[in-house]
Structures are given as C-alpha cells and as structure tokens.
C-alpha cells in the first residue's frame, strides 16, 4: 500500500502547481495528487449511479409490479424505502467525497465510508419485509 503523502505531487504535478492551489494560512492543506482527486470523484459518481438504481428499483416496484393479493400496502412498503435510500446515498456520497478530499489534502488516513453499512442495512430490511409481505399475502 502506498500512502497518499508519498504520492503527493509525484510525477503528475510539480511542487510549483501544488503551492499555487494550496489555501493560504493553512499549512499542509496542499491539493493532493490529481489522480487521488479523480479517483475520489469516480467513487462519488459510482455511488450516485447506485442511488439512481435504487430509485428506479423502488419506482419499478410501486408502479410496475401487480398488487400483492390481500396486501394493498405491500408495493409501497417495499418501494418507498428504496427511493428514500437513493436520496440518502446520494447526499452521503457528497459528504464523504468532501471528507475524503479534506483527508487527502492533509495527508491524513482516508476515513471509512458508512455507505456500505447503510446499503446493507436497508437492503436486508427490504428483503426481510418482502418475505413478510409474501407470507401475509399467501396466508390471506
């Protein structure tokens, strides 16, 4: 594993460029190697595509699925949480992009992302809820 600090300015940017972009009055807050910045940006975009996929999945469940017999609230109970998760993922991805960018600037360790936990928690919950809806629908 190579550290961000070791790669800062190495090859891609000259030290002159770094000092131009660093904020005055904040020593050690120089712009990181542009490749880290771009990788961070791609991670942000990937999470936003995940968010869009969640939204479209939620909308598909509500609008395209036939109603569950005996469970009129079933489609909404499954679809709406996925749509809300999409919004949460998008906003969290931006906050984490900023956090990571700040850590890169200061050559600090990159903070761990909470997004996988949020995603796993919600998808597990929706999966469990689907089982409940199907069972209730089968019983009625």
């Amino acid at each position, binding site marked *: 594993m190579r550290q961000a600090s070791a790669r800062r300015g190495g090859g891609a940017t000259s030290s002159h460029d770094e000092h131009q972009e660093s904020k005055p009055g904040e020593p050690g807050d120089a712009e990181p190697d542009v490749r880290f910045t771009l990788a961070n940006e791609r991670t942000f975009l990937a999470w936003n595509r995940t968010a869009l996929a969640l939204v*479209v999945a939620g909308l598909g469940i*509500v*609008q395209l699925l036939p109603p569950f017999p005996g469970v009129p609230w079933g489609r909404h109970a499954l679809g709406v949480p996925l749509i809300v998760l999409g919004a949460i993922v998008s906003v969290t991805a931006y906050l984490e992009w900023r956090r990571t960018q700040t850590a890169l600037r200061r050559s600090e360790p990159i903070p761990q992302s909470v997004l996988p936990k949020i995603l796993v928690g919600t998808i597990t919950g929706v999966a469990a809820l689907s089982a409940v809806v199907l069972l209730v629908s089968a019983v009625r």
Partner: protein
Amino acid sequence: MLPSRPEDRSPGAAALPEDPEDLSPGTAAERTRLAWARTAIAFGAVGLAMLRGEPVAGLLVLAVTPVIWALGRYVSTKTRPETRSRRLLLVTVAVTGVAVLAAVAAVLGHGGPVRLR
C-alpha cells in the same frame, strides 16, 4: 506529462515507474470522463423509465441528463477545487431531486393503491 523523464516513455525502459500513470495522469482523467458518461446514461435511463408512469417528471429528468453529460466533458487534471466541488454538488442535487420526484410519484402517482387525495 512528465518532461523531466522522457526516456521512461519507451517500452521496456529500465527506469519505468511501477504505475504507468506516473508518466501522465491522462488515463485517470479519461476513466473519470467515462464515469461521468455512465452517470449521464444512468440518469437518462431513469428519465425514460419514469416517462411511462409520470410523463412530466420523466421529461424533467431527461432535461437534466444533457447537463450531467456536459459536466463530464470538462473533466480535467487542472480543474479548480471549488469548481469540482460545485459540479459534484450539482450531481447530488439532481440525483436527490430525482429521488424526491420518484417518491412523490410513488405515493401520489397513477395506478398506486395508496391514495392520499
């Protein structure tokens, strides 16, 4: 570009860096442009999917798609940090907006069994 070590560009050179991108961050910028293109395509796909149930919301999403695409065209290694931050904030607002539209369509939309009106 790395003008100080032009000899590294030749294949099989002894002094090749362990990461080819040490020569030039160009491929990183290219990958990022492609990621923006994928995001714009995903955005367009969501717009088309919404068009069926909610034509107005779908058209609204489709109208924003070219903006996302255009933002991706300007990915560069020399982008100012504030400009980058503003572009990503715009994407966040757009995706969150789509989620809000979808939530409204899901709760109030046509064909749903839940009627709040």
